Protein backbone atom coordinates (compact mmCIF):
# COMPACT_ATOMS: atom_id res chain seq x y z
CA UNK A 1 0.00 0.00 0.00
CA UNK A 2 2.80 2.31 0.97
CA UNK A 3 4.58 1.42 -2.23
CA UNK A 4 1.45 2.26 -4.26
CA UNK A 5 1.10 5.63 -2.51
CA UNK A 6 4.66 6.53 -3.33
CA UNK A 7 4.15 5.45 -6.93
CA UNK A 8 0.97 7.57 -7.19
CA UNK A 9 2.74 10.57 -5.72
CA UNK A 10 5.63 10.13 -8.10
CA UNK A 11 3.21 9.83 -11.01
CA UNK A 12 1.42 13.01 -9.88
CA UNK A 13 4.69 14.93 -9.83
CA UNK A 14 5.73 13.39 -13.10
CA UNK A 15 2.60 14.65 -14.85
CA UNK A 16 2.12 17.88 -12.87
CA UNK A 17 5.66 19.18 -13.25
CA UNK A 18 5.59 19.46 -17.05
CA UNK A 19 2.17 21.14 -16.83
CA UNK A 20 3.38 23.67 -14.28
CA UNK A 21 6.48 24.24 -16.35
CA UNK A 22 4.34 24.73 -19.45
CA UNK A 23 2.14 27.24 -17.62
CA UNK A 24 5.18 29.17 -16.40
CA UNK A 25 6.63 29.19 -19.90
CA UNK A 26 3.33 30.40 -21.39
CA UNK A 27 3.05 33.18 -18.82
CA UNK A 28 6.61 34.17 -19.48
CA UNK A 29 6.05 34.16 -23.23
CA UNK A 30 2.92 36.27 -22.79
CA UNK A 31 4.87 38.78 -20.74
CA UNK A 32 7.65 38.77 -23.30
CA UNK A 33 5.25 39.25 -26.21
CA UNK A 34 3.05 41.80 -24.42
CA UNK A 35 3.19 45.26 -25.91
CA UNK A 36 2.35 48.23 -23.73
CA UNK A 37 0.88 51.50 -24.90
CA UNK A 38 1.45 54.45 -22.60
CA UNK A 39 -0.87 57.43 -22.91
CA UNK A 40 0.36 60.69 -21.42
CA UNK A 41 -2.07 63.58 -21.22
CA UNK A 42 -0.23 66.89 -21.29
CA UNK A 43 -0.89 70.62 -21.18
CA UNK A 44 0.50 73.10 -23.71
CA UNK A 45 0.68 70.86 -26.77
CA UNK A 46 -1.15 73.07 -29.27
CA UNK A 47 0.83 72.95 -32.51
CA UNK A 48 2.58 70.67 -34.96
CA UNK A 49 5.95 71.86 -33.75
CA UNK A 50 4.99 70.92 -30.18
CA UNK A 51 4.10 67.46 -31.44
CA UNK A 52 7.38 67.18 -33.30
CA UNK A 53 9.33 68.01 -30.15
CA UNK A 54 7.52 65.23 -28.31
CA UNK A 55 8.09 62.64 -31.04
CA UNK A 56 11.80 63.55 -31.20
CA UNK A 57 12.32 63.32 -27.44
CA UNK A 58 10.31 60.11 -26.91
CA UNK A 59 11.63 58.58 -30.11
CA UNK A 60 15.16 58.57 -28.74
CA UNK A 61 14.20 56.20 -25.92
CA UNK A 62 15.38 52.62 -26.47
CA UNK A 63 12.10 51.22 -25.10
CA UNK A 64 9.93 53.18 -27.54
CA UNK A 65 8.72 51.63 -30.78
CA UNK A 66 6.32 54.31 -31.96
CA UNK A 67 5.01 57.73 -30.89
CA UNK A 68 1.69 59.19 -31.97
CA UNK A 69 0.44 62.60 -30.95
CA UNK A 70 -3.24 63.45 -30.63
CA UNK A 71 -3.41 67.25 -30.70
CA UNK A 72 -7.22 67.27 -30.34
CA UNK A 73 -7.04 65.61 -26.94
CA UNK A 74 -3.58 66.74 -25.87
CA UNK A 75 -2.36 63.15 -25.64
CA UNK A 76 0.89 61.37 -26.44
CA UNK A 77 0.47 57.69 -27.34
CA UNK A 78 3.71 55.77 -26.90
CA UNK A 79 3.91 52.16 -28.05
CA UNK A 80 6.70 50.31 -26.30
CA UNK A 81 8.81 47.59 -27.84
CA UNK A 82 7.76 44.05 -26.96
CA UNK A 83 8.68 43.31 -23.35
CA UNK A 84 10.14 46.79 -22.84
CA UNK A 85 9.26 49.08 -19.95
CA UNK A 86 9.04 52.82 -19.45
CA UNK A 87 8.38 53.97 -15.92
CA UNK A 88 5.97 56.74 -15.00
CA UNK A 89 8.89 58.77 -13.67
CA UNK A 90 10.69 58.47 -17.00
CA UNK A 91 7.53 59.46 -18.92
CA UNK A 92 7.16 62.53 -16.69
CA UNK A 93 10.82 63.39 -17.26
CA UNK A 94 10.47 63.11 -21.05
CA UNK A 95 7.32 65.25 -21.12
CA UNK A 96 9.11 67.92 -19.09
CA UNK A 97 12.18 67.68 -21.34
CA UNK A 98 9.89 68.29 -24.34
CA UNK A 99 8.67 71.49 -22.72
CA UNK A 100 5.17 70.47 -21.61
CA UNK A 101 3.30 69.74 -18.38
CA UNK A 102 2.17 66.21 -17.56
CA UNK A 103 -1.43 65.80 -16.41
CA UNK A 104 -1.88 62.02 -16.21
CA UNK A 105 -0.51 58.69 -17.41
CA UNK A 106 -2.50 55.66 -18.56
CA UNK A 107 -1.32 52.22 -19.66
CA UNK A 108 -2.77 49.44 -21.80
CA UNK A 109 -1.17 46.08 -22.47
CA UNK A 110 -2.12 44.12 -25.54
Amino acid at each position, binding site marked *: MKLMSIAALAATFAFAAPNALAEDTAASETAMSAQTMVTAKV*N*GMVCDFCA*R*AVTKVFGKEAAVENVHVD*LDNGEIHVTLKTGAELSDDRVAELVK*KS*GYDLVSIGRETA
Partner: protein
Amino acid sequence: MIRIQTAGLVLAMGAALTSQMAEARPVSYPSGWTVMQMNNGDMSSLHVHYSPTFKDSIGLYSERNWANDWHFTGLQYNRLVQRWNTPNSQANLYFKAGAGQADPFGDGADVDLAGFVGVAADWETRRWFVSYEGRAYDLGFTQDARQAARVGVAPYIGDYGDLHTWLMLQVENQPEADTPTTVTPLVRFFYDVQLLEIGYTPETEELMLNWIVRF
Protein backbone atom coordinates in the same frame (compact mmCIF):
# COMPACT_ATOMS: atom_id res chain seq x y z
CA MET B 1 37.53 89.43 -38.89
CA ILE B 2 36.90 90.36 -42.50
CA ARG B 3 36.53 86.69 -43.41
CA ILE B 4 33.86 86.23 -40.73
CA GLN B 5 32.08 89.30 -41.94
CA THR B 6 32.22 88.18 -45.54
CA ALA B 7 30.82 84.77 -44.61
CA GLY B 8 28.03 86.45 -42.68
CA LEU B 9 27.21 88.69 -45.60
CA VAL B 10 27.13 85.76 -47.99
CA LEU B 11 24.79 83.91 -45.64
CA ALA B 12 22.55 86.92 -45.20
CA MET B 13 22.49 87.64 -48.92
CA GLY B 14 21.87 83.99 -49.63
CA ALA B 15 18.92 84.04 -47.35
CA ALA B 16 15.91 84.16 -49.58
CA LEU B 17 13.66 86.68 -47.85
CA THR B 18 12.00 86.86 -44.39
CA SER B 19 11.08 89.19 -41.41
CA GLN B 20 12.90 89.41 -38.15
CA MET B 21 9.75 89.23 -36.15
CA ALA B 22 8.85 85.78 -37.36
CA GLU B 23 11.37 84.24 -34.99
CA ALA B 24 9.15 84.67 -31.95
CA ARG B 25 10.00 81.07 -31.03
CA PRO B 26 13.77 81.02 -31.12
CA VAL B 27 14.29 77.78 -29.18
CA SER B 28 13.80 74.27 -30.54
CA TYR B 29 13.59 70.85 -28.85
CA PRO B 30 16.69 69.36 -27.16
CA SER B 31 19.43 68.65 -29.75
CA GLY B 32 17.42 70.44 -32.44
CA TRP B 33 18.88 72.71 -35.12
CA THR B 34 17.01 75.60 -36.68
CA VAL B 35 17.68 77.73 -39.74
CA MET B 36 15.75 81.00 -40.08
CA GLN B 37 15.98 83.17 -43.17
CA MET B 38 14.21 86.49 -43.22
CA ASN B 39 13.74 89.51 -45.44
CA ASN B 40 11.19 92.26 -45.52
CA GLY B 41 12.76 94.75 -47.88
CA ASP B 42 14.32 96.76 -45.04
CA MET B 43 16.58 93.92 -43.92
CA SER B 44 17.79 90.41 -44.69
CA SER B 45 18.91 88.07 -41.95
CA LEU B 46 20.02 84.56 -41.23
CA HIS B 47 19.90 82.87 -37.85
CA VAL B 48 21.25 79.32 -37.44
CA HIS B 49 21.03 77.93 -33.93
CA TYR B 50 21.33 74.79 -31.84
CA SER B 51 19.17 74.03 -28.80
CA PRO B 52 20.87 71.95 -26.09
CA THR B 53 17.64 72.09 -24.07
CA PHE B 54 14.10 73.25 -24.75
CA LYS B 55 14.95 76.44 -22.84
CA ASP B 56 18.14 77.54 -24.62
CA SER B 57 19.60 78.02 -28.05
CA ILE B 58 22.81 79.51 -29.36
CA GLY B 59 23.99 80.21 -32.88
CA LEU B 60 25.11 82.58 -35.60
CA TYR B 61 23.12 85.67 -36.43
CA SER B 62 23.81 87.85 -39.42
CA GLU B 63 21.71 90.81 -40.51
CA ARG B 64 22.08 93.22 -43.40
CA ASN B 65 19.93 96.21 -42.68
CA TRP B 66 19.19 97.87 -46.01
CA ALA B 67 17.00 100.63 -44.53
CA ASN B 68 19.63 102.05 -42.19
CA ASP B 69 22.63 100.69 -44.10
CA TRP B 70 24.53 98.55 -41.62
CA HIS B 71 25.57 94.92 -41.30
CA PHE B 72 25.79 92.90 -38.08
CA THR B 73 27.42 89.48 -37.67
CA GLY B 74 27.76 87.69 -34.36
CA LEU B 75 26.62 85.05 -31.90
CA GLN B 76 23.09 85.05 -30.58
CA TYR B 77 21.82 83.42 -27.39
CA ASN B 78 18.10 82.82 -26.80
CA ARG B 79 16.54 81.87 -23.49
CA LEU B 80 13.02 80.70 -22.77
CA VAL B 81 12.44 82.63 -19.55
CA GLN B 82 8.99 81.28 -18.83
CA ARG B 83 6.41 79.01 -20.44
CA TRP B 84 2.76 78.75 -19.45
CA ASN B 85 1.06 75.52 -20.53
CA THR B 86 -2.70 75.07 -20.26
CA PRO B 87 -4.96 72.36 -21.76
CA ASN B 88 -5.71 74.55 -24.79
CA SER B 89 -2.93 77.10 -25.02
CA GLN B 90 0.74 77.81 -24.64
CA ALA B 91 2.43 81.12 -23.84
CA ASN B 92 6.14 81.93 -23.84
CA LEU B 93 8.46 84.70 -22.75
CA TYR B 94 11.94 84.82 -24.33
CA PHE B 95 15.08 86.82 -23.80
CA LYS B 96 17.59 87.28 -26.63
CA ALA B 97 21.08 88.73 -26.75
CA GLY B 98 23.69 89.01 -29.48
CA ALA B 99 27.33 90.07 -29.56
CA GLY B 100 29.60 90.51 -32.54
CA GLN B 101 30.65 93.15 -35.00
CA ALA B 102 28.95 95.67 -37.24
CA ASP B 103 30.01 98.05 -39.95
CA PRO B 104 28.07 101.07 -41.16
CA PHE B 105 28.00 100.37 -44.87
CA GLY B 106 28.31 96.62 -45.01
CA ASP B 107 31.58 96.83 -46.89
CA GLY B 108 33.89 95.75 -44.02
CA ALA B 109 35.84 99.01 -44.10
CA ASP B 110 34.90 100.37 -40.67
CA VAL B 111 34.08 97.59 -38.23
CA ASP B 112 32.89 98.17 -34.65
CA LEU B 113 32.01 95.89 -31.76
CA ALA B 114 28.24 95.57 -31.59
CA GLY B 115 25.45 93.88 -29.70
CA PHE B 116 21.74 93.76 -29.12
CA VAL B 117 19.16 92.63 -26.59
CA GLY B 118 15.55 91.72 -27.12
CA VAL B 119 12.44 90.23 -25.63
CA ALA B 120 9.75 88.19 -27.32
CA ALA B 121 6.45 86.83 -26.14
CA ASP B 122 3.72 84.74 -27.72
CA TRP B 123 0.41 83.12 -26.89
CA GLU B 124 -1.08 80.43 -29.05
CA THR B 125 -4.06 78.13 -29.22
CA ARG B 126 -4.86 75.90 -32.15
CA ARG B 127 -7.02 78.71 -33.54
CA TRP B 128 -5.45 82.00 -32.34
CA PHE B 129 -1.97 83.44 -32.23
CA VAL B 130 -0.58 86.63 -30.69
CA SER B 131 3.08 87.66 -30.44
CA TYR B 132 5.32 90.60 -29.66
CA GLU B 133 9.04 91.21 -30.12
CA GLY B 134 11.22 94.21 -29.31
CA ARG B 135 14.92 94.56 -29.98
CA ALA B 136 17.52 97.29 -29.37
CA TYR B 137 20.94 97.46 -31.04
CA ASP B 138 24.15 99.19 -30.07
CA LEU B 139 26.25 99.08 -33.21
CA GLY B 140 29.11 101.28 -31.99
CA PHE B 141 28.60 103.94 -34.64
CA THR B 142 24.84 104.15 -34.03
CA GLN B 143 21.91 102.71 -32.13
CA ASP B 144 18.86 101.10 -33.67
CA ALA B 145 15.62 99.56 -32.44
CA ARG B 146 12.43 97.99 -33.65
CA GLN B 147 9.37 96.25 -32.32
CA ALA B 148 6.52 94.30 -33.84
CA ALA B 149 3.30 92.64 -32.82
CA ARG B 150 1.20 90.03 -34.57
CA VAL B 151 -2.26 88.55 -34.41
CA GLY B 152 -3.20 85.44 -36.34
CA VAL B 153 -6.05 83.06 -36.91
CA ALA B 154 -6.08 79.56 -38.35
CA PRO B 155 -8.94 79.22 -40.85
CA TYR B 156 -9.06 75.47 -40.17
CA ILE B 157 -7.68 73.19 -37.47
CA GLY B 158 -5.31 70.62 -38.90
CA ASP B 159 -4.16 67.38 -37.32
CA TYR B 160 -0.54 66.54 -36.67
CA GLY B 161 1.23 66.15 -40.00
CA ASP B 162 -1.28 68.22 -41.99
CA LEU B 163 -0.50 71.47 -43.78
CA HIS B 164 -1.31 74.23 -41.28
CA THR B 165 -2.28 77.67 -42.52
CA TRP B 166 -2.42 80.92 -40.58
CA LEU B 167 -3.68 84.34 -41.65
CA MET B 168 -1.76 87.02 -39.78
CA LEU B 169 -1.44 90.75 -39.44
CA GLN B 170 1.83 92.32 -38.33
CA VAL B 171 2.34 95.86 -37.09
CA GLU B 172 5.98 96.87 -37.03
CA ASN B 173 7.65 100.01 -35.68
CA GLN B 174 11.20 101.06 -36.62
CA PRO B 175 11.74 104.64 -35.39
CA GLU B 176 14.78 105.19 -37.62
CA ALA B 177 13.18 103.95 -40.83
CA ASP B 178 11.74 106.22 -43.54
CA THR B 179 8.33 104.73 -42.82
CA PRO B 180 8.46 104.08 -39.07
CA THR B 181 5.22 102.14 -38.72
CA THR B 182 4.04 99.54 -41.18
CA VAL B 183 1.23 97.01 -41.32
CA THR B 184 1.84 93.73 -43.12
CA PRO B 185 -0.82 91.11 -43.84
CA LEU B 186 0.77 87.72 -44.30
CA VAL B 187 0.06 84.04 -44.72
CA ARG B 188 1.95 81.41 -42.76
CA PHE B 189 2.22 77.84 -44.02
CA PHE B 190 3.54 75.21 -41.67
CA TYR B 191 4.18 71.69 -42.89
CA ASP B 192 6.41 68.98 -41.42
CA VAL B 193 9.60 70.79 -40.32
CA GLN B 194 9.17 73.79 -42.61
CA LEU B 195 7.51 77.13 -42.01
CA LEU B 196 6.98 79.64 -44.81
CA GLU B 197 5.56 83.13 -44.50
CA ILE B 198 4.60 85.42 -47.36
CA GLY B 199 3.44 88.96 -46.79
CA TYR B 200 3.21 92.35 -48.40
CA THR B 201 3.61 95.82 -46.85
CA PRO B 202 1.52 98.36 -48.80
CA GLU B 203 3.14 101.45 -47.18
CA THR B 204 6.59 100.55 -48.44
CA GLU B 205 5.50 98.28 -51.32
CA GLU B 206 7.83 95.59 -49.97
CA LEU B 207 7.53 91.84 -49.99
CA MET B 208 8.05 89.78 -46.85
CA LEU B 209 9.25 86.22 -47.26
CA ASN B 210 10.32 84.16 -44.25
CA TRP B 211 11.48 80.58 -44.14
CA ILE B 212 12.25 78.45 -41.11
CA VAL B 213 13.32 74.82 -41.01
CA ARG B 214 14.00 72.70 -37.93
CA PHE B 215 15.83 69.39 -37.85
